[in-house]
């Protein structure tokens, strides 16, 4: 395992600029999650590292070795796709063993058996090992395809929304398992998702992509607490950060155009009046939809709040984010 470095990587598909001068270091042993909506360039980045696509310009290196001109097989990477691809005529066990039986690896039989046992237990598919791949549910097939990557020991694991087809419960279990496997084994992972929960809970580093540009790279906490722009602030947090005209509240810096308020940056009970327009009881918390000077915002409050539609609540900002006309963050007079 070793650092994976992207240097000034650019890629166009026809007139579409998919990646725009992306530079990024994926440190050895890190879990890097690329986050962004459809079309941001997440999957393209992954494909560049894997060798399934090649950059128009720029360079990718793994462990100090340039990947230019190398095929996916020569790069020693393991990929998991959103759409599982298993050998339908083989059993689960044979599917899992397949990468290890490659003549390049020549793994001893007892080692293969040990690996398969370990991986199938982690992924909760031990009881299906002798089933044909076609006799599995969608969730099980996806676990087998993750397993087929995990039995190997590549320089980097590349995963493209591997959990998106699974149900909520299994997704929650596998989030913890993937994170545990990664931190225990010290494996390096590059992981693509548009699910912010996956990004926040698993990543050591999050790369926020916007229309092919890497706009922020840092720990989930850095990006949540210290976003560089409206775009980055809007990627993490549920309910989403409220973006309002800066002048709505007193105290905005002179060049601020927008104010960003996460629910915890809205103090209830002091400040100015807002009208409760809807109360959503989500169980562990309650979302308040508020109307403040004709602008809508969403905050959270206690699960058993006595507030109901039509009530008046006073609110004020507490340590809000301010953004300039371009949506870039303003920090104490200067830009971030």
């Amino acid at each position, binding site marked *: 395992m070793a650092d994976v470095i992207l240097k000034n990587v650019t890629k166009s598909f026809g007139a579409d600029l998919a990646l725009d001068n992306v530079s990024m270091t994926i440190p050895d042993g890190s879990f890097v999650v690329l986050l962004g909506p459809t079309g941001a360039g997440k999957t393209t980045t992954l494909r560049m590292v894997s060798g399934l696509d090649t950059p128009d310009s720029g360079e990718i290196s793994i462990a100090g070795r340039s990947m230019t001109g190398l095929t996916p097989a020569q790069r020693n990477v393991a990929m998991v796709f959103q759409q599982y691809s298993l050998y339908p005529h083989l059993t689960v066990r044979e599917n899992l063993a397949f990468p290890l039986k490659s003549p390049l690896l020549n793994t001893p039989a007892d080692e293969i058996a040990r690996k398969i046992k370990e991986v199938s237990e982690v992924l909760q598919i031990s009881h299906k090992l002798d089933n044909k791949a076609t006799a599995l549910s969608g969730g099980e097939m996806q676990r087998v395809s993750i397993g087929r990557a995990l039995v190997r020991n590549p320089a980097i694991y590349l995963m493209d929304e591997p959990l998106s087809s699974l149900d909520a419960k299994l997704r929650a279990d596998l989030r913890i398992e993937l994170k545990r496997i990664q931190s225990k084994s010290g494996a390096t992972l590059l992981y693509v998702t548009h699910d912010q929960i996956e990004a926040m809970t698993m990543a050591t580093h999050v790369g926020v992509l916007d229309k092919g540009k890497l706009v922020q790279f840092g720990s*989930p906490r850095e990006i949540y607490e210290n976003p560089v722009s409206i775009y980055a602030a809007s990627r993490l947090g549920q309910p989403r950060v409220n973006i309002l005209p800066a002048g709505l509240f007193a105290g905005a810096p002179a060049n601020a155009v927008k104010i960003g308020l996460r*629910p915890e940056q809205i103090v209830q009970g002091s400040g100015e009046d807002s009208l409760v327009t809807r109360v959503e009881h*989500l169980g562990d918390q309650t979302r308040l939809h508020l109307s403040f000077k004709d602008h809508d915002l969403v905050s959270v409050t206690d*699960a058993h709040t006595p507030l109901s539609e039509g009530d008046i609540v006073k609110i004020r900002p507490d340590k809000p984010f301010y953004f300039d006309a371009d949506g870039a963050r303003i920090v104490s007079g200067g830009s971030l």
Partner: protein
Amino acid sequence: MAQIMIRNVRKDFGSFNAVKSSTFTVEDGEFFMLLGPSGCGKTTTLRMMAGLELPTSGEIFIGGEEVGMKPASQRDIAFVFQMFALYPHMNVGKNISYPLISQGMPRAQVKKKVGEVAEILGITDILNRPVGGLSGGDRQRVALGRAIVRDPKAFLMDEPLGALDAEFREHMSEELRALHDRMGATTVYVTHDQLEAMQMGDKIVVMNHGVVEQFGRPQQIYDWPATMFVASFLGSPSMNFLAFDGMLGNNQTSVALSGVDFTIPASLEGARGKLAFGVRPEHVRFTDTSAYKGQVLATEYLGTTQIVTVATPNGDLKSRISASHAITVGETVGLEFDARTITVFNVETGRALLSHANQEVLGHG
């Protein structure tokens, strides 16, 4: 608009029983959620309301009239599917007006009606556009417009947002709910997404294996689940079950977990054998003074809060605490629970034991 009553409705497909004796009522003007995992019978139930399937036995009332055996065309309801189909060769206005024209409504009236609906949906400016070039959101609005324009007795929706990505889905769910609040139309909505159900629904029916497990307001069901299935299906992370062997008598106000006593709401029902102590993640607190210890297995950062997984003598448990609270994997923590919120379950039957706290919700459920 109308009330919908389901009475002892059962549906078999050959030897497979899809819905077992369901009974519940959707009140006039309610936004009503049918929630459950795939295969639980929620879509079959909705299709029976619509008349797309006929019940094997039982009765369905729409606006007081028994319609169980009537075909869809005679029920005056509008069905919105997950994959909404528009007529590709017609423009937006024609797509919306189609149901009215086929009913033989006079042109002037059709025009007025389509104008009103377009206004409600905020699509007045695209009425003359072909549907081909529309965004996903606008296509969905047109599909809704076509359903609304007929003034049906009720809207039935089968995961209408299922195919959309998370961000857009959130936006459309707010829009749908706001639309409902403006029109006050009885709406039955099928979903497997518990957050969507909690967020949008006035009431929720939770189904599993063809059985209605619980029926009520979202917060009631969340706080006082009738079964372990409901407790684990609602909430993310779901309710923790700490397993213990023991006995519970009437009016008992505490139980022992591995030798440590915990206060619970006074029980109204006795049980013994395999029991589970049910506590929601947000009602678990860490305190050094507690004699009940666990080891931290994992922490998951979520911005405002974090989820901490702890191994206890009675099984793994998840806690939701402030993200500012520093916790490291491997450390030992003392645990405390909010006594007012506890539900004890009989693991054999999967049912919640009646207590002073949940009797109001479960007593007449």
